């Protein structure tokens, strides 16, 4: 803040010209959330609303021989019973094939709204009941008789590709969805064959259940009077869902569908996708004559019907010389995609994984082969970080394994192989730079060593030997782990997507509309969709900054396809860099029109109007001025308009980013492992991140905290477990260990700031950074702690049982 003495004489305009962007303003969303006035999907009650429940398969793999719904139809309160054959809709779309349009064979199978002939995972929907109350709907499910013919199941992606494994789909021999390759296969092979040192390791990146605290749900309402549908959905992408539900699933014209996303209680990727239930509530509402139909999944249901994340089995080979120079990285990965494909399932372990496998390092040779695999499990798609945590885990474990092999310090080997700061824009060998029709994506910027140095200093890395010795006296094995990461985010240039057929197979620009009302109050409407990130606050900061008005004068609307310009939604850490830039662009259009109108009001040439905050004055005559409020009032009335000018300040902008953005940083985890019990305690966590310029540093820190906690969760506790028959054994929050308050330390954060050159904010995106970096940092710390016992690798999660068993075996005892 400005000094108090000055503040007395400063006008509102000059105060804001210091700029709301960059300030840690409190969030304007919060009053409703902290007083219980949030409006989440399940809080919505509509007149005449009925309730839907879904009968789900108890088998992981079975044929449906018959379904008898007569008993359920006779149950109290039941309005309708629906089976798959009743629904004339198409199967759900799959919008991101592996390899885009490059010709990679993708053997696609997606879910139907309700399964008709067979089920491919435990929890696939087979029938539904609409009833007066949720309880009646659930009770009636019990009266539906399904005859099943159980089939053998397979849950492990690597085993599913082997001879003799149960086959899921006729069009996918050996359960292979695709085999996708990136990088230089022969060059990498040559580098590995001729290298002084080669380290090999099998890595399992276990399956995770994302667990936003609000489960998913939808309300469908068919209006018989207008023949239009409204769907309230807990979604990150209401505009995309309208497109997919209309054009691909139901055939209902897109303009007759309205999607509304109310307050969303966390998402982390799970709410990006087109789910069967969205179409089901549309169908059901029409079936019951236009009564609204609500479906909200239970948590147990969610564990089987909402996407899972990760689930890779990888074989890595890293080669180089004893001086620590890496010559090549080769990775073969089996990516488990579940029983049928989710909306962008194949895109996650390919472009968002293989293409960033080299991380922040200058590896001359990289090659990655990914086999996407069907198994009898819930579908896998984007979970916070989506491919990039998996890539970071591989490369950061690889760096530690190589360092261990040649006896080099993990910090030193990273330093030696970092891309130097003069490398940018950098065309990385694992393929994001791959040119298709001349369209390339480059790593835009980076300066990795200062972040590493800062993190090491904060951690007291130089004194780690004595810290370890001190812990030893307390019966603790102390380990320190590094993770130097980059991520690709701010997705994505539409022309690149168009050229390579990646992403949604569609553009990925973003939209913003600014209207300034007669009173000077501003409504910004955006195409992105918050799930807790505070867009209402940060976007008002951006617009207030650009137009020189108090943030209180800007309100931010979103989440309703009616009235909002089309937008691609929020995921891939894109909202600030792409959506924020759209808001800046819209503000620029408004400013330009206001400038031209000010010239009209002040009888000057537009070229002579100077804009300072919200003040528009004539150059050389500072007394001749109009405020934005005065301009918006006059142009809004339109009593006097220059030739050809339309009344009102109302401008829409569509921003297409010229490139993705590339946050980076180094995280350091310090763990202590109890020598007796194997319990791992995360004692310190240090994160130095470079996310470019920050709109609201408080919100940025919060995003990092949350991402770090989720990544730590994967390393230490979380994991979805299926038995060999495809039964999800970790089927409730009792069996799936989510991080709790007492398991985590305070996080120690710092920053370096390298503004992104690709957008006017210089912002890169921060929603996923924490989750991308932290899993590898904690994993490396645990292995470092165990390394005195000769342990060089363990698969996650590092539960006490896993660690204790490994320690016992290493010590030569029984386990």
């Amino acid at each position, binding site marked *: 803040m400005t000094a108090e003495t000055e503040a007395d004489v400063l006008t509102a305009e000059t105060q804001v010209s210091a700029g709301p962007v960059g300030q840690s303003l409190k969030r304007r969303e919060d009053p409703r959330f902290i007083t219980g006035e949030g409006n989440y999907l399940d809080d919505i009650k509509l007149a005449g609303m009925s309730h839907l429940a879904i009968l*789900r398969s*108890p*088998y992981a793999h079975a044929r449906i021989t018959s379904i008898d719904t007569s008993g359920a139809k006779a149950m109290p309160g039941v309005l309708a019973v629906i089976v798959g054959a009743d629904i004339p809709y198409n199967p759900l779309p799959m919008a991101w094939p592996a390899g885009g349009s490059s010709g990679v064979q993708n053997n696609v199978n997606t879910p139907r709204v309700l399964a008709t002939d067979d089920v491919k995972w435990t929890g696939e929907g087979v029938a539904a009941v609409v009833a007066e109350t949720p309880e009646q709907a659930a009770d009636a499910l*019990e009266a539906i008789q399904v005859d099943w013919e159980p089939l053998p199941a397979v849950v492990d992606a690597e085993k599913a590709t082997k001879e003799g494994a149960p086959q899921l789909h006729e069009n996918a021999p050996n359960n292979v969805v695709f085999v996708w390759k990136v990088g230089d296969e022969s060059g990498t092979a040559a580098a590995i064959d001729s290298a002084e040192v080669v380290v090999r390791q099998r890595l399992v990146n276990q399956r995770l259940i994302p667990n936003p605290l609000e489960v998913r749900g939808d309300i469908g309402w068919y209006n018989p009077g207008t023949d239009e549908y409204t769907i309230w959905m807990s979604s990150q992408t209401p505009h995309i869902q309208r497109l997919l539900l209309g054009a691909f699933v139901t055939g209902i014209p897109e303009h007759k569908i309205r999607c509304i996303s109310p307050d969303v209680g966390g998402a982390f990727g799970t709410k990006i996708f087109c789910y069967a239930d969205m179409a089901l509530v549309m169908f059901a509402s029409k079936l019951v004559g236009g009564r609204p139909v609500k479906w909200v999944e239970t948590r147990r249901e969610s564990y089987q019907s909402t996407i899972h994340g990760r689930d890779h089995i990888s074989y890595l080979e890293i080669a180089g010389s004893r001086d620590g120079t890496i010559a090549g990285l080769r990775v073969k990965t089996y990516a488990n995609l579940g029983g049928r494909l989710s909306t962008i399932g194949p895109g996650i372990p390919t472009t968002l994984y293989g293409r960033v496998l080299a991380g922040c390092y200058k590896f001359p040779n990289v090659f990655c082969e990914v086999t996407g695999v069907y198994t009898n499990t819930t579908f896998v798609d984007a979970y916070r970080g989506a491919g990039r945590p998996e890539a970071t885990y591989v490369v950061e474990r690889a760096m530690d394994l190589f360092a261990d092999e040649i006896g080099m310090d993990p910090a030193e080997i990273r330093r030696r192989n970092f891309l130097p700061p003069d490398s940018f824009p950098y065309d990385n060998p694992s393929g994001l730079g791959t040119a298709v029709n001349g369209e390339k994506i480059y790593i835009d910027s980076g300066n990795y060593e200062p972040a590493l140095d800062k993190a090491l200093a904060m951690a007291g890395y130089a004194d780690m030997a004595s810290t370890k010795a001190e812990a030893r006296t307390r019966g603790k094995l102390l380990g320190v782990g590094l993770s130097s990461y980059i991520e690709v985010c701010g997705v994505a240039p539409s022309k690149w997507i168009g050229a390579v057929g990646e992403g949604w197979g569609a553009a990925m620009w973003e939209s913003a509309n600014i209207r300034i009302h007669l009173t000077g109050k501003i409504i910004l409407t955006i195409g992105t969709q918050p799930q807790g990130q505070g867009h209402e606050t940060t976007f008002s900061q951006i617009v207030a900054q650009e137009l020189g008005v108090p943030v209180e004068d800007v309100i931010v609307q979103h989440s309703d396809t009616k009235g909002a310009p089309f937008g691609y939604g929020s995921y891939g850490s894109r909202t600030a860099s792409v959506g924020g830039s759209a808001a800046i662009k819209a503000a620029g259009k408004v400013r330009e029109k206001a400038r031209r109108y000010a010239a009209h009001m002040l009888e000057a040439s537009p070229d002579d109007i100077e804009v300072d905050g919200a003040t528009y004055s004539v150059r050389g005559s500072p007394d001749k001025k109009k405020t934005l409020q005065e301009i918006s009032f006059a142009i809004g009335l339109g009593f006097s308009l220059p030739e050809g000018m339309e009344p009102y300040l109302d401008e829409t902008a569509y921003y297409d980013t010229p490139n993705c953005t590339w946050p980076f940083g180094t995280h350091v985890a310090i763990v202590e492992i109890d020598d007796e019990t194997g319990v791992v305690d995360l004692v310190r966590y240090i994160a130095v991140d470079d996310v470019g310029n920050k709109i609201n540093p408080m919100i940025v820190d919060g995003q990092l905290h949350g991402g770090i906690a989720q990544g730590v969760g994967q390393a230490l506790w979380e994991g979805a477990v299926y038995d060999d028959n495809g*039964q999800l*054994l970790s*089927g409730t929050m009792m069996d799936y260990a989510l991080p709790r308050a007492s398991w985590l330390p305070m996080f120690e954060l710092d920053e370096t700031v390298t503004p992104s050159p690709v957008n006017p904010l210089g912002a890169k995106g921060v929603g996923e950074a924490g989750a991308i970096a932290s899993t590898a940092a904690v994993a490396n710390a645990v292995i470092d702690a165990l390394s005195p016992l000769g342990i060089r690798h363990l698969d996650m999660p590092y539960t006490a049982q896993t660690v204790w068993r490994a320690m016992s075996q290493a010590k030569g005892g029984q386990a």
Partner: protein
Amino acid sequence: MHFEGTVDIEAPRDRVWAFLMDPEQVGRCGPGVESIEIVDETHFRARAKVGIGFISARFLMEMELAEQYPPDRAVMKAHGQAPGSAVDASAEMRLSDCANGVTRMDWEADVSIAGTIASVGARLIQGTANKMIAKTFDCIRAKLEA
């Protein structure tokens, strides 16, 4: 899941065999069994309520005496369904004579459980199943030894 065990019953082998092959008799010993319906000589249906942890479900079980070699060996197959859950089982028992009029039954069973019961009760299934099996045999023994 695989279970196996041995039970000694103080009753002659013929009587034990006859009891075990009578669905009405043996069925009543199943914990939570509410009704038995005989379909034919080798098929019957049972309704049973099973609770694991905080959930319980009413199963409709289709049972089949798949193989009978009186009075030595029998194989039974069962398929049961409850809302959102299913169970498939195959059990084999062998009878032999011991001293003092005791009949020894060696049995083994393979059970697979699917759906809600599997995902929610996974940690508790083994324990619950053991308890239910023990109860069943206690009941059979008590009735035969009475």
